[in-house]
């Protein structure tokens, strides 16, 4: 099994799917000749040609719109948003068109598009290259939203997303691109959409998260184990639809829940997870549900001290997890 960066796993998923299915194609800004600003699509235009790896104008609404149109006639487009921050011109296409096509056509039409967009900060990207826009799309029925934390999951989930008959938003974490390196199988495997994944078993606290903060949680859990605190860590993997059963089961294990995400706290994914727990697990709770999230500020600042303040870290997780364990 080759060691592979998170970004290479995403590239490999697209490559494999394009080789297997001629209806799969990529469109986006700088995805072709340049191979993507992060090199996510590097080499794909050489392999598949200009017709299947298309450089588009700087118009996100057009990227999404063209993808939706192509999907209408049987194609399976992968639309890349260069940064999720730039995705907002495409929200109308995504929310009002892609998400509603199956419903509106009474199941006659579907819209098998994947919109890939890098999320997250910690890369000195500042206001317009660091956002986590999950909460903008979260709660829109008709969309599936995926946010993998590992290279293995990134490949398996992207392949599942490409094959999925409905619109999928694939939020890849740009800080993970080069940071995460692990064994990724060469073979054609799928990680199912809608299934959460238990990363670590423990008895003292449950941590529920997705994307980058899970790495911090895993590191913190390792340290807390030295103190005798064991952590039960659940990776949501798919944030829409949420895996309610897995959430409930993970909560029942310890009765103490910490929900973590980099997107800001108010109205985030964590709020919905907390609501599910409150609805289903009241009598299993041994402590108030806690959330550790990005602060409710308009954006991530670019200067390093404030960026550090904004970003989650192992230490922040460690403090929050220990506090909850001691409660």
């Amino acid at each position, binding site marked *: 099994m080759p060691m592979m960066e998170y970004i290479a796993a995403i590239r490999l998923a697209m490559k494999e799917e394009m080789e297997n299915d001629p209806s799969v194609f990529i469109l986006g800004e700088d995805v072709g000749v340049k191979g993507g600003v992060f090199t996510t699509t590097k080499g794909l235009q050489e392999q598949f040609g200009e017709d299947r790896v298309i450089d588009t104008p700087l118009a996100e609404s057009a990227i999404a719109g063209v993808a939706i149109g192509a999907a209408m006639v049987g194609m399976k487009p992968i639309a890349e948003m260069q940064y999720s921050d730039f995705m907002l011109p495409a929200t109308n296409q995504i929310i009002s068109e892609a998400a509603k096509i199956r419903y509106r056509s009474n199941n006659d039409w579907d819209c098998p598009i994947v919109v890939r967009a890098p999320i997250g900060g910690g890369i000195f990207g500042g206001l317009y290259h660091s956002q986590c826009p999950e909460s903008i799309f979260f709660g829109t029925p008709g969309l599936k939203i995926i946010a993998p934390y590992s290279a293995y999951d990134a490949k398996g989930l992207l392949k599942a997303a490409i094959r999925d008959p409905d619109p999928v938003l694939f939020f890849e974490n740009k800080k993970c691109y080069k940071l995460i390196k692990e064994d990724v199988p060469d073979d054609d495997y799928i990680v199912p959409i809608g299934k959460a994944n238990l990363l670590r078993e423990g*008895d*003292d606290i449950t941590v529920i998260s997705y994307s980058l903060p899970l790495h911090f949680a895993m590191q913190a859990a390792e340290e807390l184990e*030295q*103190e*005798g*605190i064991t952590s039960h860590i659940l990776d949501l993997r798919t944030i829409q639809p949420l895996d309610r059963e897995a959430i409930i089961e993970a909560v029942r294990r*310890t*009765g*103490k829940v910490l929900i973590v995400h980099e997107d800001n706290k108010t109205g985030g994914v964590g709020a919905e997870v907390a609501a599910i727990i409150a609805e289903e697990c*009241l*009598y*299993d*709770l*041994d*402590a108030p549900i806690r959330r550790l999230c990005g602060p409710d500020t308009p954006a991530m600042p670019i200067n390093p001290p404030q960026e550090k303040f904004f970003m989650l870290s192992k230490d922040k997780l460690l*403090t929050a997890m*220990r506090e909850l*364990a*001691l*409660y």
Partner: protein
Amino acid sequence: MSTTNSVQKNITMPQLAESLVSATISKWLKRPGDTVDLYEPICEVITDKVNAEIPSTEEGVMGELLADEGQEIAVGEIICRIVTEGEASEEASAPAPSAPAAQSPAVRPASPTGASAAPQAASGGEAGGMRARYSPAVQALAAQHGLDPAVIPGSGMGGRVTRKDVLRHLEHGGASQAAASAAPTAPSAPQPAAASFAAPQPAAASFAAPQPPMFASSSLSSQNEVRHSGLHLSENPKLPKIEIEEGGRGANETYIDITPIRNTIASRMRQSVTEIPHGWMMIEVDMTNLVKLRNKHKDEFKRNEGVNLTYPAFVIKAVVNAIKDYPIMNSVWAVDKIIVKRDINISLAVGTEDSVLTPVIKKADQKNIAGLAMEIDDLARRTRERTLKIDDMQGGTFTVNNTGSFGSILSQPIINYPQAAQLTFESIVKRPVVINDMVGVRSMANFCLSLDHRILDGLICGRFLQRVKENLESYSPDTKLY
């Protein structure tokens, strides 16, 4: 005794300096049960730079000590707990469950709520308002197993009974005990539970059998209790103490553990020698006039100020004045630039038995000779007493080393990184010297300068040393100390 009023406050390892991430507790100055005033030192710590005392941020009575002497604690970690408002001090401070049991009966008749001390003691002295607040999970489990959560020792925040406490209690056969205690036929068993809950209960009821439930619950706790606070889930590995071990094997060798300060000295010296290309110069100074000046004032100075009027005060004054003329001496190499420091902060090398430290005379250019003498005395004394603070060690821009104090006449100092130079002041010796073609006996001393050759060259340093020499030789019996 109203245990509900007392609160356990966590005391954490403070950030003693920007760069510090941890410190080693060298000595606890307060023991559990000791009264602690606000800002009163509670322990001594060794950092990689100095020994410092940690002042208390709370007023109250020392509770648990969560760190051992010799243990390295990361900044922000809890080192101990202080019980504020004193009332619960006996329980909080007593590690053995029998101690509160022995003390409580004497106090108890004074207050009808005294019986609540029983579950308190059972929880290992954890006091706080969370004792009787049960989470949905605890209530559900208790109901399911017919338990009264009040009899279960709480390990959570503020003595709260956690879900795990209930599960542990069940595992240890707590269910049957609790079931027995729930039976109203046993007069003594339900006591701790009932009393702690029912506040309006007549006092007589809670006094009915104070002793048996006390001991019952105490011994129960000592059996069942795995920890008495969350942080004690497992024992921290003890760090090796700083001590000299006699080598048992060959008996020819002695192993000395490296102290944090020794480690810092070692790495700083290596860093200085490897990074800084050292140059070296020496100059000879006629100290005769200075000796006379000092002899004239030293007794009176000692009488008036209570400190010795030492040569380094005069030397530092002369050096500082020379630095003012050659500010480049007061600089730092920053790869793409040289940073010249405006404040002249003189690091003074002070040797102790097992280390050398360089406390700093801040803004030495703004002090007169008397002021310098007093500051030198203060820093040297506090170095020997190991009471220097981090702040005393920081900000030095140029080092003066009184190597003459141990008889050296020539030395080649390693620059105090990242400064640009270090000057040593060697022994003053009487020697025949030719002055105006006549031989006279003069008090002579050598001054040696190590310089960062990236910043400084021979010419500028030669001029600087000449200026030091001029300044020292131009002292006269009329020079003012103040």
